[in-house]
């Protein structure tokens, strides 16, 4: 039978060029990749049964970079760098080229708030995990680690929330190590709902230490550790009509879609809304003052 302390770790790496080109000096893409590579090596060496899967989150697409259980990805060979690193780097480079090519088709349109396709990579991770579940009784406990720096894309709110709920249903924790500037509400909610850990490191030059201390441990051993929990969670949602982040708005009582302004009809399920309470009250007031 499988032992408890084996992990199947799916790592989602943020390769959004628009974020990395503007990132602070304490962590650029070069250093980020170095830290992550060493961390991947650590996981692999912790146990022979550990598996890792690396998915790159690009701007226009997402793709699997490395899967330790695949025969095609078995890394051997000598060279300056350990074989794992050169393999991953090679695949990363190919991915970046692919991502750029896909983006070139929409040339001339640059982004104000450049967000990566987190919803896509989350979905890919969950699909992989589902396949593992159906492969048989012997599988390690899967979890997802999100290494994200790009800000939240509010247009992806619904897809990300769906992915989060699906992860919650399958009991897959979503951890997050956020290296961007402001906290990500979506990922905070993801960790909170699925029982994962959300960390926003203060000292980015020691990113590897954060990864090794917090995220290297398997799920079973987490019950013996006190991992850092954030003080609060930002539960804001995006409205469905304009994709702006709101914390007060209107909710359709049929399908629970959120709107920032009063609509006559729900765009998701089509139910007709009655006249809003506030408007009715102000009408009455106006009539009273006129008479």
């Amino acid at each position, binding site marked *: 039978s499988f032992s408890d302390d084996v992990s199947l770790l799916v790592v989602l790496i943020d390769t959004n060029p628009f974020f*990395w080109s503007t990132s602070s000096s304490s962590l650029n893409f070069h250093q980020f990749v170095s830290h992550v590579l060493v961390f991947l090596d650590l996981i692999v060496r912790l146990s022979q049964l550990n598996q890792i899967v690396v998915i790159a989150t690009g701007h226009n697409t997402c793709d699997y970079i490395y899967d330790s259980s695949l025969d095609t990805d078995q890394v051997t060979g000598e060279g300056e*760098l350990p074989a794992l690193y050169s393999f991953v780097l090679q695949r990363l480079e190919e991915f*970046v080229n692919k991502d750029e090519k896909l983006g070139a088709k*929409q040339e001339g349109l640059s982004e104000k708030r450049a967000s990566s396709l987190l919803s896509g990579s989350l979905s890919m991770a969950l699909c992989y995990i589902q396949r593992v579940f159906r492969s048989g009784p012997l599988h390690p406990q899967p979890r997802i680690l999100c290494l994200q720096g790009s800000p939240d894309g509010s247009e992806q709110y619904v897809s990300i929330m769906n992915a989060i709920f699906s992860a919650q249903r399958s009991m897959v924790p979503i951890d997050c190590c956020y290296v961007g500037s402001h906290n990500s509400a979506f990922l905070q909610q993801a960790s909170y709902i699925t029982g994962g850990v959300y960390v926003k490191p203060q000292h980015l030059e020691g990113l590897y230490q954060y990864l090794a*201390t917090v995220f290297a441990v398997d799920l079973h051993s987490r019950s013996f550790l006190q991992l850092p929990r954030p003080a609060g969670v930002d539960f804001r949602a995006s409205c469905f009509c304009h994709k702006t982040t709101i914390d007060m708005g209107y909710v359709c009582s049929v399908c629970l879609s959120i709107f920032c302004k009063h609509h006559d009809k729900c765009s998701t399920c089509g139910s007709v809304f009655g006249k809003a309470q506030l408007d009715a009250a102000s009408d009455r007031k106006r009539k009273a003052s006129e008479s």
Partner: protein
Amino acid sequence: MSSGQVTKRVKYKTSVKDAGTPGRLSLVKERLVFRPNNPNSASKLDMQFKYITNHRYTKEGSNKAPMLNLTSNQGASYIFEFESYEDLHICRDFVGCANLMKFGHKGVAELLHRQQKLQILELIRKFIQNNPAEMICSSVQGCCKTIDYVLHSELQKLHQQFVGGGVLTEAEFWATRKKLLEKDANRKAKQRGGLKSSVLAESKPFIDGRTNRVTFNLTPEIVREIFSEKPAVHRAYLNFVPSKMADKDFWTKYCRAEYLQRSKNIAAAIAEAAEDEELAIFLKPDDILANETRRKIRRVDPTLDMETDQGDDYSHLPDHGIFRDGSKEVAESGNELYQRTLLQDLNRHAAVVLQGTPIDEEQLKDTQTVAEALERSKQERSTASKDDESSADQERLKGISQAMTIDDLRGSNDHHLAPLWIKDPRDYFDSRQASSVKTSIEATKGTMSSHESYGLLRESISQIKSMGLNHPVVASEVAQKVLSVLTHNISSTKYNLGKKPGESLLDSLPTSVRDELLHHHISIEELMKHFWSSYPITNKYLNTKVTKLKDEMSKMDSQLQKLKEAVQPDIRHQITLLIRPMQQALEAAMQHYDAEQQKRASKAREKPNGYS
């Protein structure tokens, strides 16, 4: 006592056994003077009260002579023997009060610590009783307050914080604490006894078989009960006595009627009633009662539901129960006019007891006064209830009409049915995509073109490929820093709390934090009391008061915040939870204040119609 001077004839002794020099002792506000009768004697005394630290005196019950022993701060004692204990008491009280006023607050505190609290309070009360004008004297009032807030040092802190800080005035602060100022004002609450639940009127008469005499025992209490329960008898008494017949005759007739009733000899009762008119009154059913009952029946709320209380068995206790056994009474038809059943009597007695007009002892002197007093009280009650009745009637009618409408039997509301509409889910996702493309299209140009950004990524990757990774990838100091940051927030309270029985969270906190927390809590409570009692704001005084309170509240809020931040990280979470209700109360009050201010401002802006 006059305006603060006492002169008494005393004998001045240096020790108890000493014979003593006769002379006069004068006590004025700040000094005592002893002048011996013999002007050549050397034992003159002229001392200020502030040098006297203690005074002792002989008790009245003892066989010793009345003596007062004053001790000075240098240790010398001066003993004065008085002519009577009264003199002694007067001088002693004077000295005691003088001590108080002279010592001021500190002295009172000292005396308190020597556990003379009761004596001090006694002194003050006597002083106040004897000198009503002096009550205005702030020092005495100050002493009263001092005693209380020395006894309650939290009160002192609160007082200092609010009154000293100018947030509340003295009057406001003490407004809710009047009880503390008058210590044991009226210990004896005058509570009048109520009616006994035993039916006194049913006490068996003494029947002497030999002489064929029946003796009834009527005390004023029984008489009162009879009058309350049988208003017709009461009316008859008021009408007949003393105009028509004497008191004794009246009661003789009444007792005869009672005896006839008891004997269950209905025929005899009817016969006697036919002869004697007044006797008939006693035998007939009470018509006043009947009218009242009819009225009450009309007023009964048909929607009332009642619960019966089973199992209350009081009959074996004294002052409870009845002496009459109703089981053997048989109601013969046709003679109901002259028969009173046990149930009727019992119900009437119970109604009177529940009505509960208390008995004053003075009224029970004799039957005449009892009758008059009862009449008076009844008149008062009837005038009071007349106004209530008309409004009560209306309310009753309204209540009945409301209860009578049964919702189910009404016509049904028209429920609008919404038709079922199933949308194609693909439309939803397509619209999502369209909107997302739209948002991605609208934007300004970034600092770097996309090609350059991708180029950066590629460059980083090739750099790593060529140069390899850093050795080590993380510097040791940085790693240590990260480790300490990650671990220092780990709180151990989760494991320590709740292990020892009887240990509460407050006890486990460090004392300074705990005291601060408690003090904050008390002061916030005080602030809230004064704040919420000032609404609605009707005048300017309340307005300024509320503004001051609000400033204090915001100060308190920031103090709480600072407390939270200053405390150790492993108890910070618990402290936050403890503080949260206080912060919420402060926030609610401040929000209310802001909302009120806005309302007033908008009201001020609105001009009435026609004004420009």
